[in-house]
């Protein structure tokens, strides 16, 4: 059967077909749907781990026990999992172990666009790069085979356009999963220095064998063509190249670590001009030049952002390969009106909105974190000063507290429930242990909202849909030694403001848990707010809430009754009583 699948669906399918029985990961765009699809297959186990490090450790354990295992994460998640990753290369595997790194060139939904191909080289683990869904499914199977044959974890590196583009996959039957026998072998699995040195030597031998394999694997192949121009490429860049230079000779690399030196030399010898077309860093190009070959790459093709057929074409025009007149110019339209941007915004009724309104009003320095609530930093809410990585808010706030007495009592860390469990807890331990004064606002909306509402240890459900114990956030932070802990309704502005004012000035660490489920989970259809036009002075204070349901036309406020769910926030900011909550609505509705 032939099915149109995204790359993520195809990876889940490939894992199922090839007998993976254990999968773990942490949600992160563009990787999230892999486990959401995999968990639906019969007879498999899949879970959301609290973070990527734990997820990989679960995968290593499952592999050690003899199962085929899959671990998924976005590119920045690999930073979190890097510690076990670099040593898992030493231990190797029992059952096949595959790590998905889903990179996000162009930063569609990420804080950076690091090129994780460097991780394969850094950790010395083989890496495969599919360029469409069919390859993603096939390479999932191949990765498991390589992992078991060479006793090493394998990275399957995808990018947003592979993860989220659909193309055809011919479905195959599932091979019956089998569990390899577990035998105690401390020289392989117990990485103390003496055994680590032995495994380091073994890793060198394994990489040598893998280098030879890379030269003969069918996923590294030459597509013969015009001998004047030869192009080495991998991943989705291959697709852009085929649209741009259909006649060129191509060396398509499906396995990009270790790179096949012999095959590259052979290919280079058969063409007049050699190019490398790759997204992000000159990863392949540096290797090819290191072989002493004169390859052109980043001189003509961009090193940042997503590639596409157009940038590839522009590069080949600049390199004199495609004549300029052969490509149709992009139409230019004269006298176009300015098109306003349409940035993502917090939804109408979002419980985060009140928090950022209050923080801005109180003129606090706010160290932020990763989630929907990062949108609270954008105009007109502008209630956040920084966002660096998962969990950074708390450590940064403590750093500010220790560095600048003038900012003490004026700084708050803001972090979501899932992000707090991911990597906020250790930051809070640091604050308590070292006698800091940081105030932490945990925005508990009872889900991992930004990535599409995944469950987490605070929601009471697992990825497999089973009931789970709900983490008691108040109890957790108290047990860490935080004495000042309180829970507020983020849509009750006066209660919220009072709590923040008290806690930022109090000495010692404080935690305020702002608890209200995500509006998209509540599916609330409360009565919309109405406008008393006579009372409205057109002051536009309500617009600072950045609510998509509120606008001001002809100096009068108006509320869109379709998108307003009656969360009750805006009546609290209107000094003139012009915004009227429906009876029975109001704060906390």
């Amino acid at each position: 059967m032939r099915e149109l699948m995204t790359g993520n669906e195809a990876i889940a399918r490939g894992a199922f077909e090839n007998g993976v029985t254990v999968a773990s990961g942490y949600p992160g765009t563009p990787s999230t749907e892999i486990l959401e699809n995999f968990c639906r297959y019969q007879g498999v186990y899949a879970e959301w781990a609290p973070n990527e490090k734990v997820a990989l450790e679960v995968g290593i354990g499952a592999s050690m026990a003899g199962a085929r295992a899959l671990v998924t994460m976005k590119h920045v998640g690999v930073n979190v999992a890097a510690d076990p990753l670099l040593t898992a290369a030493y231990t190797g595997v029992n059952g096949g172990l595959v790590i998905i790194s889903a990179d996000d060139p162009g930063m569609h939904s990420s804080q950076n666009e690091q090129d994780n191909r460097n991780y394969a080289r850094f950790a010395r683990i083989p890496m495969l790069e599919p360029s469409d869904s069919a390859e993603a499914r096939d390479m999932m199977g191949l990765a498991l085979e390589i992992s078991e044959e060479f006793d090493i974890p394998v990275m399957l590196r995808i990018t947003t356009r592979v993860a989220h583009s659909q193309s055809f996959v011919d479905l195959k039957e599932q091979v019956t999963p089998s569990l390899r026998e577990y035998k105690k072998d401390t020289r392989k699995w117990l990485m103390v220095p003496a055994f680590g040195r032995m495994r380091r030597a073994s890793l060198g031998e394994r990489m040598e064998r893998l280098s030879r394999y890379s030269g003969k694997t069918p996923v590294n192949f030459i597509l013969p063509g015009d001998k004047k121009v030869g192009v080495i490429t991998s991943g989705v860049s291959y697709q852009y190249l085929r649209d741009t230079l259909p006649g060129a000779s191509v060396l398509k690399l499906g396995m990009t670590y270790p790179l096949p030196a012999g095959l590259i030399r052979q290919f280079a010898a058969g063409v007049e001009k050699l190019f490398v077309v790759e997204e992000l860093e000159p990863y392949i190009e540096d290797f090819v030049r290191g072989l002493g070959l004169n390859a052109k790459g980043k001189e003509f093709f961009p090193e940042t952002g997503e590639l596409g057929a157009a940038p590839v074409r522009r590069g080949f025009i600049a390199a004199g390969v495609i004549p300029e007149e052969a490509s149709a110019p992009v139409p230019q339209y004269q006298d176009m009106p300015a098109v306003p941007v349409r940035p993502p915004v917090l939804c109408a009724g979002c419980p985060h909105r009140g928090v950022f309104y209050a923080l801005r009003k109180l003129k606090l320095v706010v160290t932020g974190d990763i989630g929907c609530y990062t949108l609270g930093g954008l105009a007109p809410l502008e209630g956040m000063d920084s966002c660096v990585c998962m969990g950074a808010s708390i450590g940064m706030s403590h750093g500010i507290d220790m560095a600048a007495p003038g900012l003490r009592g004026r700084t708050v860390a803001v972090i979501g429930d899932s992000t707090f469990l991911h990597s906020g807890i250790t930051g809070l331990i640091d604050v308590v242990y070292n006698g800091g004064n940081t105030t932490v606002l945990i925005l508990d909306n009872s889900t991992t909202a930004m990535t599409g509402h995944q469950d987490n240890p605070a929601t009471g459900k697992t990825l497999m849909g089973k009931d789970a114990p709900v983490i008691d956030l108040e109890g957790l932070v108290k047990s860490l030694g935080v004495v000042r802990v309180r829970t507020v309704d983020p849509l009750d502005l006066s209660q919220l403001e009072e709590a923040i004012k008290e806690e930022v000035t109090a000495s010692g660490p404080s935690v305020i848990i702002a608890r209200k489920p995500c509006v998209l989970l509540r599916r609330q259809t409360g009565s919309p707010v109405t406008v008393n036009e006579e009372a409205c002075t057109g002051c536009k204070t309500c617009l600072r809430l950045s609510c998509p349901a509120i606008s001001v036309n002809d100096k009068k406020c108006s509320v869109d009754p379709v998108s307003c769910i009656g969360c009750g926030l805006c009546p609290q900011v209107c000094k003139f009583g012009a915004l009227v909550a429906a009876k029975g609505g109001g704060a906390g509705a």
Partner: protein
Amino acid sequence: MRSIDVLLVGVGGQGTILASRILAHVGQSMGYDIKVSEIHGMAQRGGSVVTQVRMGEKVFSPLIEEGTADIILAFEKLEGLRWLSYLKPGGSMIVNDQAIYPVPVLAGLAVYPEDVTGCLSARVKDNAVVDALAIARDCGNPKAANVVLVGVLARRLPIPEEKWQEALAARVPAKFLEVNRAAFSKGYKL
């Protein structure tokens, strides 16, 4: 054959995904190779959304480049204007005559341009302006506006009507099928 490249643009929540699923289903039943690309994650929260559908004998890139789309299906008119440069010379624009104000406009920080559909008509010879919401409401459910637009699109593609009817039956939940069939027909006959 050259590929058929269709760009579906709109605002999160307008039903662009169902429309692209119907289109891909039709393409599959025609035996085309297909690539569909969309962006998830942060872009969904009320931001601009775009789905790219490419169909043909063999399709490589999942992306439609500027100046090459055969048809742009704009579920919101400002989004039609935003993506206009992606339309190939002589291509068709189908624009839903609906305005959804971005937050910077609501906040008075930016201006929603006047006469967007007129601006498009002045630049695109085949610019079909459709009041899809009103048509869908007449059919019994405003949520079928996306399928009205699919009907308008169907008329412009070299694919027989019965293929579209099959795709509707396969992709639309049974209890909404009747109203969506009506919505499709109204669009198809425009």
